[in-house]
């Protein structure tokens, strides 16, 4: 199992609140790791620290052998990191397909010089991106809504689009923030299938999730966080059975 992401000694405090307490975390290719813990445990903060949205007080993040620490958020995405958001954060003024087309790892259309003088390159890129986006949407059962506005979709489908968008960059490490919250029925099954497929292709996946059934069915491993620290790592079934962790989770 190849190490894809290695987090070492990560610390962060906001005033008196410690959101990361000496965190060590390794994510492996092809494995899905579930990050569980009560609200306020620091799960989303850990994603923010890894992706560079928030700068840590100390510690390092290494992706595929290269340190990410000096890089900004968007530069880390270029290196093969990808993440989704708890509250989706799609682009409401763009149709579903365009939400994906803009999310390729390299998007030549973001440089005005290419738009003015590199028409051929843009066209070639656009064709490839459309093919990829259509394929991803098809696998998620979203082919029929490719031209809809994201705001017209039910919430569960919006969540799927969020994951689809995060897959456009062909990342080696995927961080999913509560992909299942508000997702039901066909979207639920599609989400489960897609995340598994992504991992099977060799991507290291980390999922923050409160849905215990989803974590148990999908994750190869669980990590329990509490008050900014990693308390335990092991099989999800073990973590769920542990009376000490249950107590922390429910706060008896």
């Amino acid at each position, binding site marked *: 199992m190849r190490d894809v992401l290695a987090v070492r000694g990560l610390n962060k405090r906001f005033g008196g609140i410690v959101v990361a307490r000496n965190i060590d975390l390794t994510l492996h290719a092809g494995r899905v790791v579930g990050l569980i813990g009560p609200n306020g445990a620091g799960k989303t903060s850990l994603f923010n620290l890894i992706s560079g949205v928030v700068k840590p007080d100390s510690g390092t993040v290494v992706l595929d052998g290269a340190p990410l620490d000096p890089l900004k958020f*968007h530069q880390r*995405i270029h290196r093969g990191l990808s993440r989704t958001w708890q509250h989706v954060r799609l682009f409401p*003024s763009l149709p579903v397909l365009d939400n994906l087309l*803009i999310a390729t790892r*390299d*998007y030549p259309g973001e440089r*005005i010089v290419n738009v003015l003088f590199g028409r051929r390159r*843009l066209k070639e890129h656009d064709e490839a991106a459309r093919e990829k986006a259509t394929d991803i949407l098809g696998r998620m059962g979203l082919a029929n809504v490719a031209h809809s506005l994201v705001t017209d979709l039910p919430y569960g489908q919006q969540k799927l689009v969020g994951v689809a968008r995060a897959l456009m*960059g062909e990342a080696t490490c995927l961080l999913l923030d509560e992909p299942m919250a508000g997702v039901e029925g066909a979207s639920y099954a599609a989400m489960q299938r897609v995340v598994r497929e992504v991992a099977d292709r060799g991507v290291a996946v980390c999922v923050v999730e409160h849905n215990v059934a989803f974590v148990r069915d999908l994750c190869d491993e669980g990590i329990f966080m509490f008050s900014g620290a990693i308390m335990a790592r092991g099989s999800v079934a073990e973590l769920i059975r542990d009376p000490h962790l249950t107590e922390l989770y429910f706060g008896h």
Partner: protein
Amino acid sequence: MEYLDGLIVIVGLYVILAASFNLIIGYGGLVSIAHPVFFALGAYASAILARDLALPVPLAMLGGTAVALAASIALALPSLRVSGDYLLIASIGFQLGLLEVIKNLRFTGGSSGFINIPPFLIRDFGRASYVALVLAATAGVVFLVRWIARSDYGRAMSAMRDDELAFASIGRNAMWMKIAIFALGSGLAGLAGALYAHYFRFVTPEQFELLQSAAILTMVVVGGMRTTWGPVVGALLLEALPQALAFLNLPPSVLGPIQGLLFTGLVLVFMFFRPQGLVPAQDVWRGARAAKESR
């Protein structure tokens, strides 16, 4: 005829200013008021290059455009590194400061203005040829902005305005896009300035004061932000209407205030009855709609 030619040139140049400002504030979502300063930079730089350094006028015009573009990058780079709000503050300082500099330098002619700017085309081919040049530039700028807004770049601008954090989370660099948008828009304002200088052959600093910022902003807002024709309609209306009033033969003491009233009155009326402007923008990015329709 000379009056009408001058009017067409002025309206055309304001269409360029409004269309390029629409790129900055409408499509880019960047709030700046310094647009007239880049107009001024283009005018002064082109005038100085042509008169004092004896450059051929077309080259001087290119130089003026380049100076405005470079100055806008110098302004945007430090302020956008911090946040978008700083651009507004920096632009106010830049506008007030630079106009003071122009007023107090010898080689800009000081507050009495820069005179004897070399003419272009008019002596050899008549005024109509210059009017044609301005109209061609106007059409070029309007369609350039429209084309960019509907290209892959327009898709990115739409996404950036929607959600900057999500925009970064897919690997896009919002800061450089903003700088490029600001530079292009300001460069086009510089071009308008250069075209102004070699037609009217005289510029003074007070032509580019805060009132001009308000005028250009009003043209974009009243016409309709983030649309192709909004700034065109806005510039036509707000430049032509005060000129038409001049035909009423009112004494200057009455005419000035009436034009001012018309100006602010229009903004007030639009604020209440048509906040989307004369030409309303679509909520959906037009490029996607255009692609769908052509399918």
